[in-house]
């Protein structure tokens, strides 16, 4: 992985943390997943690697389409304002990224920058899910975490199992499908895909 690719992936992740429009956010995550798919296919040395790379590309396209359908079917009169303002969200994400890269020692990927990029994507995904009110952004946070883990699989020095990689792709697709169903039901029940409305169950 080149330094530019790493920065591109991290930049797209931070973009997801700060943007307000859902369609732009879906575009950012889909672009990131497609970049990962291209990387996987470029580095593919065996048929299994090619299959895993193609699965990653299909996942990117399928989830992108699913998210765009969910956005189109839950049009909101105005974008939801997150609990935390954009620059503060970016600050939270950067602090989480620095913490994670400082705490997790080198773990054997092809290079330390690749490891940092993996940890940055995971941290940005967690920050996105934790600081956004929009239900769609919370799911995009999960996809961002999984994109980071896909990068770890691509940059691993050992041949990974294609079955495990396909399984992860299938699982993530299932989770996003179920989340999209919930998002649409929450939208029809509460009039907005707003997780702030989901706080009545407390002790």
């Amino acid at each position, binding site marked *: 992985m080149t330094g530019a690719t790493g920065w591109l992936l991290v930049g797209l992740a931070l973009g997801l943390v700060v943007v307000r429009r859902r369609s732009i956010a879906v575009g950012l995550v889909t672009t990131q997943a497609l970049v990962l798919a291209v990387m996987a296919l470029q580095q593919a040395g065996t048929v299994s690697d090619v299959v895993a790379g193609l699965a990653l590309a299909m996942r990117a396209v399928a989830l992108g389409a699913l998210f765009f359908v969910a956005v189109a079917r839950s049009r909101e009169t105005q974008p939801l304002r997150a609990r935390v303002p954009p620059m503060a969200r970016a600050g939270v994400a950067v602090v989480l990224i620095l913490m994670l890269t400082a705490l997790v020692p080198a773990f054997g990927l092809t290079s330390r920058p690749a490891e940092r990029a993996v940890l940055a994507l995971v941290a940005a995904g967690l920050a996105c899910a934790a600081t956004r009110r929009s239900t769609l952004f919370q799911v995009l946070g999960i996809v961002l975490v999984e994109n980071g883990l896909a990068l*770890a699989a691509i940059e691993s020095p050992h041949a990974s199992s294609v079955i495990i990689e396909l399984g992860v792709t299938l699982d993530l697709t299932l989770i996003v499908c179920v989340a999209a169903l919930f998002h649409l039901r929450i939208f029809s029940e509460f009039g907005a895909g707003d997780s702030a409305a989901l706080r009545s169950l407390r002790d």
Partner: protein
Amino acid sequence: MTSIQALAVVVVAVPLVTAGLVILAPSKHVTMLARTCAVATSVLAVVLVGVAVRDAGHPLIGHWIVVDAAGALLLAVTAVIGLASVLMSASYLHGAHSSFVAEGHRDRVYYGVLFLFWAMLLAVPLAGNLGAAWLLVEATTAASALLVGFSGKAHALEAGWKYLILTSLGLGIALLGIAILAAGVPTGGVSGLAWGRLATFASGRSTALSAYLLILIGLAAKIGWAPVHNWLPDAHSQAPPPVSALLSAALLPTVLLVAWRTDRALAPLIGVSAAQRLLIGFGLASLAVAVPFLWRPMAFKRLLAYSSLEHLGVMALGIGFGTPLALAGVALHIVGHAIAKALGFYAATPLLVHEPRAARHAVSGVGRTAPALGATMGLSLGALSGLPPSPLFVSELLILAGGVESGRPWPAAVAAVLLALGFLGLAHATIETLVGKGHRRNVTRLPGLRLVTTLGGVSLVVLLGLTAVAPWLSGSGFVDALVRGVP
């Protein structure tokens, strides 16, 4: 493929195929088909459990499939609770007034997703490597989230959403830990993630410890250990009662098994003491968070959910202490808790018809107005509180004794105090449920009451049987196999 491996595949395949069949079957045959296939699944699983227990000293270990003592324990629990949940589902569906899907498709979608969930649950204890175990646990999330929100009501949607997001994020963190392990195991691929190969990790102790921490924290979110338990009371209280039973009695301990196996596999690398301290920490935190809620008047299903937090904490303590005595206690606790907790959730189906306000408020005096239902609820709560002769009383004693035996008297002492306080809270709830002040009740015929009371009778016999065999458990070959784990 050996005959045992083939049987393991069939045990998972039957509910998986059934999930497809019930979606396609004519509406009038859906319930009968589901019940028939549930019986077949359970019988096959029990046969596999019998084989695994008979050969507990010689577990079957492959890269994809493991059949060992700990797996057999969870397989037995999941098979029995799954069957009972399928049997109880007709009563739930009969009384359900709303759902996530259109009325005409409701039953077939419910059973289809329930069988998918059950199939994944049955597969987790049989998973031969950490990667496959993670995939299966993640798959249970997708299916069970749909079931949690199945009623389609606002509260159910809220609970389902919290469950889906929090557990998916947690499992994402666990997957990061697995990716770190995969990068450091020399062989790579699936064989590198096989339980027995994890100890060959070559990137150093501190990296192994980081990976273990990420995996354990991630799985803790799915197990429902404090402080990452926020989804648990909501999901268990809003899910259909048969699903709540599967979530609490089977899903949580099944994911616990994955944490247990990871702990055993990585202990030589990170040090036994470090791994044990973490588990004991989660155990004590879960007990400390659960106990104050057990003292509060609370909706019946929500009370059972907080009791799950307490009992999963007890299991974490037992695994953390790690002595044969403590592990005998864990085995007994998993089975006893599953039976008592599932019975409580099944009783919620007739209870919510008998007293609809029980969905949001504490109930009292059910023993006076519906004696059979009250007795079943009392049996469940009494057993869960650890009231002698409940097997949970014996298992908690074994775990505490195991703590002292392992040279950790202080955590054992703190746990003893917290368990005593938890006992008082649940004992008070038991008394209130049975003989408390009564309210005006709905006296119509209660759906599922006959089945619930039958299950109550069977549960009473099994619980007393467990208490009777408990003294011989700690020296048995089965517990020896638990102590050895997956070699």
